[in-house]
């Protein structure tokens, strides 16, 4: 009986190529949209997590002010170099401490100028931030202490100012400071937040404070903790030390923030998760629209199919034989459409992931959900009108208008 139903169903599908195709199209679009959107969303989340992980989980960032959420902080007095030195001196189990301060300014070379982020820091800035030198060298601890006029530039700055020339050994001007380019950083591309990590100039902190801004302020202190030491413990130690140095009484809240990478990761992936839920909502709508497409085709073909059912019944088909045939038809169309949708989605996801520069993350549950949902719609709307028709007296089904 199943074999018979299969023959009948396949014959019927072959005869109605257009109808079968339109039904499948609804399923294909629904399934593909959901899978593509969710896969890309997951890929973006994964990218954020990976980038943060690449910075190392033992990195702490100390900001003045209190973080209120992404990009917001309450104002508070900046740190001084002495704070960083105190941390280095009094907190054990730290590998490196890099105080830094930055400011946006224009770098000038001959006729070319380019506005970029200039950061003043110590030589430890490079290892802490995982920045490698492509050409030349970084400044030494001696140069940092003395405050000589040297700088290390990022790839974007090199392109904007030097074009094809070799930048090493040239003098560029930052405000009133003329400094020698001693190193070129390896390109790192866009950050998770979308800023260009190669659009930077790094100079010794002392040089920055004395000869560029004229202020002693430090806007961030980065600290790396030795492996195997609890970052939570170190965070508490640093907080205690800073509270003392910033003269906070017991009932005052911290006016600085010590964050480890886990927290930053949480903060950023919160953002991408919002994005993923948004994409999923859009995908859900696509699935629904696809479902409505399937429903339409199924319901529109009911008239024609009711007469067909009448004919089959008149010839001697039993109700369950007709239903089995319709069920097989719906299942074949739905699973075939689902399969095409999945293949299409996987190909598009791989291509789009490449174009958008996010990793391709295969999400198996969402594939199943999408396929099952569309298949269910296909089967339900193919099956129930057929069942209604098959329960009629043949003459009523034949007379159906």
């Amino acid at each position, binding site marked *: 009986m199943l074999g018979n139903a299969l023959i009948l169903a396949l014959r019927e599908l072959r005869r109605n190529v257009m109808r079968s195709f339109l039904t499948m199209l609804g399923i294909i679009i629904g399934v593909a949209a959901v899978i593509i959107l969710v896969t890309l969303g997951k890929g973006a989340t994964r990218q954020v997590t990976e980038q943060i992980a690449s910075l190392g989980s033992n990195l702490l960032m100390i900001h003045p002010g209190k973080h209120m959420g992404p990009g917001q902080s309450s104002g508070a007095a900046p740190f001084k170099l002495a704070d960083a030195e105190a941390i280095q001196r009094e907190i054990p189990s730290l590998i490196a401490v890099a105080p830094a301060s930055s400011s946006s300014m224009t770098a000038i070379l001959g006729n070319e100028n380019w506005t970029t982020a200039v950061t003043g820091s110590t030589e430890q800035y490079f290892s802490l931030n995982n920045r490698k030198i492509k050409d030349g060298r970084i400044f030494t601890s001696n140069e940092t202490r003395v405050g000589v006029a040297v700088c290390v530039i990022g790839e974007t700055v090199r392109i904007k100012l030097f074009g094809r020339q070799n930048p090493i050994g040239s003098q560029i001007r930052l405000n009133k400071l003329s400094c020698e380019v001693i190193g070129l950083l390896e390109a790192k591309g866009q950050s998770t937040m979308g800023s260009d990590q190669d659009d930077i100039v790094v100079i010794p902190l002392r040089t920055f404070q004395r000869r560029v801004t004229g202020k002693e302020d430090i806007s961030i202190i980065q600290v790396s903790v030795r492996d195997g030491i609890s970052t939570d413990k170190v965070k508490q130690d640093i907080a205690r030390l800073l509270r003392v140095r910033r003269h906070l009484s017991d009932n005052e809240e911290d006016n600085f923030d010590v964050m480890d990478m886990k927290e930053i990761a949480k903060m950023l992936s919160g953002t991408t998760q919002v994005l993923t839920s948004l994409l999923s909502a859009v995908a859900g709508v696509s699935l629904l629209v696809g479902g409505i497409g399937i429903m339409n085709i199924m319901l529109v073909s009911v008239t024609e199919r009711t007469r067909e059912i009448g*004919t089959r019944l008149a010839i001697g088909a039993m*109700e369950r034989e007709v239903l089995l045939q319709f069920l097989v038809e719906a299942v074949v169309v739905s699973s075939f459409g689902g399969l095409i949708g999945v293949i299409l989605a996987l190909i598009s996801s791989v291509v789009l992931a490449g174009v958008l520069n996010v990793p391709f993350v295969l999400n198996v549950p969402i594939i199943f959900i999408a396929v099952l949902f569309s298949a269910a719609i296909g089967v339900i709307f193919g099956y129930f009108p057929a069942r209604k028709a098959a329960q009629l007296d043949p003459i009523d089904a034949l007379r159906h208008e």
Partner: protein
Amino acid sequence: MKTKDEDKTENVPLIELKGVRKVYGTGIAAMEALRGVDLSIYPGEFVAVMGPSGSGKSTCMNILGCLDTPTNGTYCFQGVEVGQLNHDQRALLRRNYLGFVFQGFNLLNRTSALENVELPLLYRHTSKSEMHPLAREALEQVGLTGWEHHTPGELSGGQQQRVAIARAIVTRPVVLLADEPTGNLDSKRSSEIMDLLTSFNRDLGITIIMVTHEQDMAAYAKRTVHFLDGLIENDRKQKEKSSC
């Protein structure tokens, strides 16, 4: 087959309608299509059903073909009361005993003539190897050799009618019910079809009940039943025709 049937059932009707009424609609809109029809048909008969349109002959045919159910009265087929059968049992009765030629053909669209004719065989679970030859033979009998792979849309009205006849006879039914089987055919084709039906009746013992408007066609039958206003007005046996 023929002799066995005739021996056993010469006096037992194959089909027996008793007081059959059929009412469409309800209340004031109710329309009585059949108003108490009694009809007995014996195996091997060839009955022509005549009457003006609206006289209830098509309704009667639909009931005889188990496509429709009477409002009142009983319909016995080979002594079995059809009213007592369920949906599936009636389907099996249609499948195994009846062949129906519809007035509007009711062929499956976009389906080749051959596949249309094979359809009842498929539901009878005829093996694949037998199905093709039987369907081809039936199409050949109605003169459609060479048209097997044309769909109804590609066939003329007369050709569609002949596909419908082929589909009805391919299973060699006990009873062939035909609603105006020659309605769309020219006189030459009509007489060919009638000769074919006559030969099924004579050689295979298939009982034939046929609705027709034309006296010429009714003349092929052995018995003519006239319907008028939902009742049988006249039921007479023709003189035994000399076969040509």
